[in-house]
């Protein structure tokens, strides 16, 4: 069962905190996105293993863009 | 110190405050209407593309 983690806001990826294959738990911090000169941490909504990371540092993303897929 | 011109002050307040609120309410309604119209235009555009 795949779960897509989408971005709640438009902005630039500042940091990627996980790697493919990592086990994440709900509420773990996955990314940091810069929007409106603010640093916004993005958390996991559920637990799982990181199957695919769709973005890298300095990418510009739009609201609802898929950032990561969890298995 | 000159007396406070209450009448003028209230006039400015009512017209001013009412004016801003009224203006923004009208703007809000205009946007609602505008959005509906643009969506219609876009839908027609999509339908035309679909037919072709």
């Amino acid at each position, binding site marked *: 069962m795949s779960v897509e983690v989408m971005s709640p806001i438009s902005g630039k990826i500042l940091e990627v905190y996980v790697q493919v294959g990592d086990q994440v738990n709900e509420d773990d911090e996955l990314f940091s996105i810069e929007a409106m000169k603010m640093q916004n941490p993005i958390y996991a909504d559920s637990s799982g293993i990181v199957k695919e990371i769709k973005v890298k540092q300095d990418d510009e993303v739009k609201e609802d863009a898929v950032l990561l897929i969890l298995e | 110190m000159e007396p406070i011109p209450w009448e003028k002050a209230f006039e400015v307040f009512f017209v001013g405050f009412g004016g801003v609120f009224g203006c923004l309410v009208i703007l809000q309604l205009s946007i609602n209407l505008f959005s509906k119209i643009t*969506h219609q235009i876009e839908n027609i555009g999509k339908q035309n593309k679909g037919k072709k």
Partner: protein
Amino acid sequence: MDAGLFYQLVSKMGFYHLTLGNILMWIIGIILITLGITKQYEPLLLVPIGFGILVVNLPLTDLMKEGHLLWVFYHFAIDRWDILPPIIFMGIGAMTDFGPVIANPKTLLLGAAAQFGVYATFFGSLLMGFNIKEAASIGIIGGADGPTTIFLTSQLAPHLLGAAAVAAYSYMALVPIIQPPIMKLLTTKEERKIKMKRLRKVSNLEKIGFPLLATIVICLLVPASAPLVGMFMVGNLFRECGVVERLSKTAQNELINIVTIFLGLCIGATMSAQVFLKPGSLYIFFLGLFAFCFSTAAGLLLAKFMNLFLKDKINPLIGAAGVSAVPMAARVAQVVAREEDKKNFILMHAMGPNVAGTIGTATAAGLFLSMLLK
């Protein structure tokens, strides 16, 4: 040596004419520059303002005397033609994304709520002895909008320009400190946790049409606000139409920077000791703070009130963003919301009222002008 010659020499030096007031103003100017540099309080304005204050309080430089350097900038850019604030607005419009407003137009009303602060302060100022034009200029500080404050004050009460501008920009910088206590006082934890539905996608056509629509509606209703609103919207049109990238970039960068430099210097230059060191200036600072707080509170309360009638509740914190301090107030709303629920992202929702606040304040200024300018 001839005493007369010596006197002539010395009297041409600034030192001889220095007053205590001048020195006090130096201190104020240097404090503003320091706050700008060390605490990053609105440095783009406070640094040039601070320097302007310093330089105009050096006697005999006469920079503000008719025909001289700063006078020329001031006279043509602010005093006579009042063009600097509208140009800044064009730049801001080019930086602004009206998507959140278009997606949820109800939030425009939250931008109106901030005007409560403006008018409450208007009356407060009257009670403190200011005349009606001065009261309007002080009141507009509650709109939390620098250029609008400058635009209005330079036409209604130019002698208060320095104090009003410094108050406006100082409080804007202090938004992250002033707002949160008020926000927590007037809202419950439950309310602060409200999650709002994702904003719907706004099409490009809507984003291009909006500035045109807004210009037509607002300028027909309040023609006096045209210099500000019109420029705001043309900047936005540059941004959204996608085909004038160069113009949009210039408006947001070089143009607004050039104007900001001159604006800051000119405002500082109006603050000579004689003009600024009056009790009125102190009153303005207190009234300005009152204005800010009142506007914040009004926005929060209106949001709570609207929730009584809405199915999809709004998080009342975004009401506080109805003050025009863009994007600071929106950021503050986000920070406070995340204290209750770290996953709650209301930043974009808060941008709606934030940006609406700018429109609201500009409209209010237009109305003041049309009613008070003879």
